[in-house]
């Protein structure tokens, strides 16, 4: 068992709803290219605006995405806002900090506030990579500090697998998945709440919280 698998197993006890099913044999043979202390991919280049890509055609099904699909199906039949984020980001306390994942979470939480939980779920995948045991504490603190203790979150090797399955190129990347498991939107970088609201409204069946 690799260190990554150990970490994932530990977290599956500490954190609810963390996917920890064994990987398929073929997947075990694949390289999971984690570099020391670094990311599988880089940070998205857009800092102050959303980059809406059409890399995943609206209507593309997430059902073929292996373990990720199983994990999402456990959330239930509802729309899912699925964000791949970098939990290792630290505020630089400077005027130009590029911590887009942290910035994105502010808006993700706002979207969650505005929509009924039985119609729209928020799910997260940590794409920061796992290279040392201190990461466990970091993630526990991250989830607690950001009000995400009850939010489903893939971490470690499972997170990396989800990134590969959905072709995530940079962090943060956000998908909107409809209740039929079709990807209806994909954004790289910071996505603004108006954009998310626009995409959710296009689904037509996700209702807002009564005002």
């Amino acid at each position: 068992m690799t260190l990554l698998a150990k970490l994932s197993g530990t977290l599956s006890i500490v954190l609810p709803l963390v996917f920890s099913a064994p990987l398929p044999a073929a997947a075990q043979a694949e390289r999971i290219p984690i570099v020391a202390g670094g990311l599988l991919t880089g940070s998205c280049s857009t800092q102050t605006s959303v980059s809406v890509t059409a890399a995943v055609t609206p209507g593309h099904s997430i059902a073929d995405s292996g373990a990720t699909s199983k994990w999402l199906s456990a959330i239930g039949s509802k729309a899912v806002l699925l964000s791949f984020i970098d939990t290792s980001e630290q505020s630089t306390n400077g005027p130009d900090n590029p911590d887009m994942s942290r910035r994105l979470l502010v808006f993700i939480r706002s979207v969650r506030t505005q929509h009924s939980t039985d119609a729209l779920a928020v799910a997260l995948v940590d794409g920061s990579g796992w290279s040392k045991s201190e990461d466990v504490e970091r993630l526990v603190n991250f989830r607690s500090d950001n009000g995400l203790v009850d939010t489903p979150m893939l971490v470690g090797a499972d997170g990396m697998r989800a990134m590969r399955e959905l072709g995530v190129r940079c962090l943060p990347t956000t998908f909107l998945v409809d209740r039929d498991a079709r990807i209806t939107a994909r954004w790289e970088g910071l996505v603004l709440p108006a954009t998310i609201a626009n995409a959710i409204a296009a689904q037509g069946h996700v209702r807002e919280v009564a005002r």
Partner: protein
Amino acid sequence: MRISSIAVERRLRFALAIVAVLVLHSKAYAADFYVDCSLLTDGVGTADAPWNNLATPSALTFMPGDVIALKRGTTCVGMLAPLGSGEPGAPITIGAYGSGGRPVIVAAERPAAVALFNQTHWAIRDVETNGGNPHGLHISGDTAATLSYFRISNVSVHDVGGVATTKQSGLIDISPAPGAATVVDDVVIDGATVFNTEQWKGIHVGCANGVFPARNPGRIIIRNSRASNIAGDGITIYACSNGLIENNVSYDIGTASTAAVGTPNAIWTWACADCVVQFNEGFRSHSPARDGGIFDIDWGSSRTTVQYNYGHDADGYCVAIFGAWGLVTTNSIVRYNICANNGRSDPYLQGDIYLKTWDGGWLDGVEIYNNTIYWNPAAPSSALVNRENSLVGTGPHFFKNNIIVSSTGAFVSADDNLTLDHNLYWALDGAPVWEYGSGWWNSFTSFQSAAVEAHGLYADPLLTNTPDLPDRPLTAFTLRPDSPAIDRGVTISSMTGHDFFGVLTPQGNAVDIGASEYEPAMNLIVNPSFEFDLGTVQTPYGWSTWSSAGQDYADYTQAYADGDSPTYYGAHGVPHSYDVFTYQVLPGLAAGSYQLTAWVKSSGGQSVAWMEVNAYGGAKRTVTIPASSTWTRVTLSDIAVAAGQARVGFYSIAEAGQWLAFDDVSFTRAAPPMPPPTDWTFCAPEGGVCAFTGTMEVRYGATGSFFVKTLTNGTACTNAVFGDPAPGTPKQCAIGTLSTPPPMDWTFCAPEGGVCAFNGTIQVRYGANGSFFFKTFTEGTACTNQVFGDPAPDVAKSCSLPLTGP
């Protein structure tokens, strides 16, 4: 006796703590101190023997670089008010250690949970506070000094007690004491979550008590923070320069039951110089009286920009600009914001964009442009309100390139000291109404005839996902390919070069109207550049493989070159004969014309080597990939998709050693030809009669769904005539000017019965209310029915000339 023992013990512990501090500081470098309030016995502030209370560190003077770390997962009761100041490069930090939830400071009715007074260079992070009255986290001072460098990050401050009797209260407040000459400078609040208080402020930074000039040389930044359930304001900056409020969310603010303290907004600045408010979201703002808005450039501000924000579902306005108290507010810019569903409870009829001056204040420089406004007020007020205000000075004062979609038809109530132009208006219900200066118009034609807005448009902006009213937020913000807003805006010198969504502007010949710039060519290919797999794989992500001989392994991605960050392309080729097809099916395609392109190269010699498109509703089309050792672009254009999908791919039938490479595949929809700009004028409700003479385009429908017919001499406005474009929705007929005029704007020339004089040969439009006849004349014409015929009987008509330029 017992009390005396405790007192002695406490004094002893305090002395030991002092000794510990002295010992640790005797090394001439900063030290870390620890607090673990879950311990039964007090320590000396070390990692092995932490303090177990807040009183001890609050009695000590800390040194630059010191860290006071509270243990995660624990709760301390009291107020943390340590003494001392850091210095540049060595702030004193209040933070956390360990694992678990942030350490909680429960202040109950103490003045604050964390307090600093006349101190500088502090960082406060990773802590949660509960209670305090009237503050949660309070940094202040009363000396004639500059208090500099405060960093507040990853904190939660909530449930401050009491009820506001002054604005100097709330959850996070960093400002001088009232009346003091203190200046606050260089503040960053990043990642603060504040909520629940009947005190006034959520997050506030005030740099001085005077307003001019702001004396803080450093930045004042509030970002990535959330403020909610607050009696007063959400997030504010006062009397500062270089302020930046970005990426915050503020909602459910203004819950105070009376206006005794004030009237709040979600995010605003006043007496602020060179301040920017951007990328924020505000919603559900309330107020016991006026305001109750989202964003506000308030009195005494200079060079403030509110941009790229989303304000929705407020009781009051989306954005306001104010001048008051004998002070000027200069050079205000409000651009590329999205405002939706505001004015939900506004008896003061402030509108969505609200300008107001009072008590000798004035505005010098107001630029409001490229905002998208869904105006759905509970009370019948206009979207733009600018009445009885002082807009003077050298700055421009205009409202341009904005989209206003109104559920009531009320668009503008403004004095003529604010120029209108290039705006696009659309009424979802009711007759359109403009009030400008002393004039009042209830049709766009009459509004245009008054020469108030030369380049305005009245048309459905054709936004994506046209909303249902009124039970849900309005969330359609981007332009459809056939939107009349595309390329109809005017360039403004202060533009930044991108729209609300980050799209570069302009994309076409001119900027679009509204907050969204239409991108004409969106690539619909999944994994178009073969980079998703981050390595050499068979059957690249997003693509499928087919082979008649089971040789699906013959397609794969290949790296351009080795290195730390290789890039990849798609390829065919194995060391024996093979056939392989790499393809993807693109579902959900709207009918229209598309183009498929790719960069390719090939060994040549294959019996088949082509790029193809099929299953799109027409015959399969291919383009042969030529033999070439360098990259060449191949294209299949004018693909008329009619089947709702298309299958695109690359096919090889080859012998050993023959190869094919492809990269940067693109499948884009060609922009449909722009229809002539169409102005639609209400004609009759469903069931009524739309009367006109001559042949006209008549549109029938509602809320973005219409059927258009070309009809002669009037028509019944019914489903029987047009079909039903919007079942269950009340519809209406509107007359268009589509069929005859070329795309142009018109300017008033002469009233009916007058003479329209001009030089040269020009086409002249004659009519009213969307019903016009057109003729071409040389050197002028009489503007009469005898000359043109009568396009609108019993209606006062006018002649107009095409406007030749912006």
